């Protein structure tokens, strides 16, 4: 991937546009206005009623957390005596790609599970657009716009790709039992509208139309991951959580997936929060990085800053002093 100094390019562009006054939302004044826009219904509508996603307002992505779409405050999670998350506080800026990184066992998936509602933290709260969702059950969180993919693919093997994706839209459809039994009438209309939406917006976008009638169990790994992404998109998310979206993929698949994630952020206006181990991808597409180790946040900020943070380097590589390492190795071999 090409390395651009995106920050510099954006600031030049931004000042140019500001000067022309063409897109007033770029100005600082508009930033504070958007922070006041806590009306979630308005915000939701903004993304989905517009026919062409590009019509949505242009928002520079590194305004330092204009709107915090998700905020975790002092979250503490333990299983029996083992603390998986210790006093975690961080926030996800809206319209960004935020990545959570950290060594294995740092608590990344546990964090996702807390946000999804599968685990209930012993202490702390989680706020979604300013609303405390800590007591909400997972289906209610899904209705607010929290979508997610899973580390080990959690597709429903008894259904086709199309059915899996349509399932994602469950919270947003409303066919009841009697309507379903009769089918002809409102249920059929809703089904057809759903089918059209899924085909147009998601299947074409993710280029999976050639497999849409296949049972998911027969698909190769990379396509299964893409179908899972499609299903998460069908949930009409405000915040999309991806748990290791490119794990186990080859280089080409990773590039495709990265392209999709960037498009999701820019064309769909969805905030992306992901857990990822592939450092080059993290550095290339993330706007904001949070580093976890042993259940604690040890660093957060721009990718470049985090990369240079000594605490982060130590978490991954251990004590970076080669001389110390050599001495320790020699001591061990002498003792043995």
């Amino acid at each position, binding site marked *: 991937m090409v390395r651009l100094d995106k920050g510099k390019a954006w600031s030049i562009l931004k000042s140019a546009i500001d000067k022309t006054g063409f897109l007033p939302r770029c100005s600082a004044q508009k930033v504070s206005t958007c922070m006041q826009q806590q009306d979630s219904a308005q915000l939701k509508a903004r993304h989905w009623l517009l026919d062409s996603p590009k019509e949505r307002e242009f928002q520079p992505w590194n305004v330092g957390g204009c709107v915090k779409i998700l905020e975790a405050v002092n979250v503490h999670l333990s299983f029996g005596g083992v603390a998986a998350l210790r006093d975690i506080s961080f926030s996800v800026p809206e319209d960004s790609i935020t990545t959570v990184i950290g060594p294995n066992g740092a608590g990344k998936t546990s964090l996702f599970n807390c946000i999804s509602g599968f685990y209930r933290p012993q202490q702390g709260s989680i706020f979604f657009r300013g609303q405390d969702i800590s007591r909400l059950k997972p289906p209610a969180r899904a209705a607010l716009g929290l979508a997610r993919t899973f580390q080990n693919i959690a597709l429903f093997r008894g259904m086709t790709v199309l059915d899996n994706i349509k399932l994602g839209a469950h919270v947003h459809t409303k066919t009841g039992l009697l309507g379903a039994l009769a089918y002809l009438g409102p249920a059929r209309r809703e089904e057809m509208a759903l089918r*059209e939406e899924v085909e147009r917006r998601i299947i074409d976008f993710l280029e999976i139309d050639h497999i849409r009638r296949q049972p998911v169990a027969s698909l190769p790994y990379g396509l299964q991951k893409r179908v899972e992404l499609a299903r998460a998109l069908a949930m009409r998310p405000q915040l999309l959580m991806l748990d290791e979206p490119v794990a186990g993929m080859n280089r080409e698949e990773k590039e495709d997936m990265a392209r999709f994630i960037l498009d999701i952020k820019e064309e769909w206006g969805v905030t992306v929060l992901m857990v990822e181990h592939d450092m080059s991808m993290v550095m290339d597409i993330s706007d904001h990085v949070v580093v976890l180790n042993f259940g604690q946040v040890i660093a957060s900020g721009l990718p470049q800053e985090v990369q240079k943070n000594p605490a982060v380097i130590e978490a991954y590589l251990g004590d970076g002093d080669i001389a110390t390492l050599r001495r320790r190795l020699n001591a061990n071999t002498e003792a043995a």
Partner: protein
Amino acid sequence: MRIGDAKQSYAADEALWTSTTQQVWFGLLLLSLLLFPFFASPYLLYLACLVGIAVISATGLNILTGFTGLISLGQAGFMGVGGYTVAWLSLHTSLPFPIALLAAGLLSAAIGMVVGLPSLRIKGLYLAIATLAASVFLHFVFVEWASVTGGMAGLSLRSAQLFGLTFHNDFRMYFMIMPLAVLMLLAARNIFRTRIGRAFIAIRDRDISAEILGIPLLRYKLLSFALSSFYAGVAGGLFAYFYRVVTPESFPLSMSIFYLAAIIVGGMGSILGGVLGAIFMTLVPEGLKLLTTAITPIYPQAPVFMSPLLGVVFGVLIVGFLIFEPNGLAEVWRRIRRFFHLWPFRT
């Protein structure tokens, strides 16, 4: 061979019968079902009615166990609730049979929901055993609550009636049972074209992920229990009208196992499987009966062995299908269809 089968609209793609050939065949099937009683012997008519009842109940169980993955050993109990409701209504009121059947279904559905309440906390085989416990409780109620259920002697009914028309023989019962079976099958199939059916399948495959995707688990599990028990209740009601007597022994535990075997043999997780399984399992005992009658001249002891032999055959069928064809008769049917779709090609 099927070629040139491109669809021009989403509605056409999502239809149940997607090609003209299929529609024609289905029309012929409906026609033959309609004309069947006029040409059939009384014995075949009797069998057809039994098959109709079995199909409805098996479909109900399939919805719960095959599609939603909640194993139930209580089907006989729910059928019993339906049967007793219909019997009681026929003795104490003069409601026309559609209302009585509806009442039977609704009461069974309500009880089904109560039985399904533990499904939030317990899963899999523990839930199956809970349904077994429920079945035992229901059986106890049927026996002990003699003032309503007639105790061990049970209840006997008048024939079903509708606007003065009495359904007193198999011919008329056929026209009550068969259209109801077709409608309920269609309704069940429709469920799985909508979000509700998808939610059921999701609960079966991965219920935790389903919940995170927005499906409220308890509500849908209870819905599945309610729907499945409704079907069982209606089937039990038809059973009552057909035999005109219900006793606690009409709905034994072995009936629950019979229906479980029917959906396994037919194919869990497919509506067609429920139908095929019900037909197959209802006809097997009859086939065995015929075989025994045929052998009796040569081997006079044969009838003694018929009942235990039925048990052995039943068990062998279950074990055989599970080992060799776990997706049941529906899968066999799909293979045959695929062969004809692809012919003269092989794959």
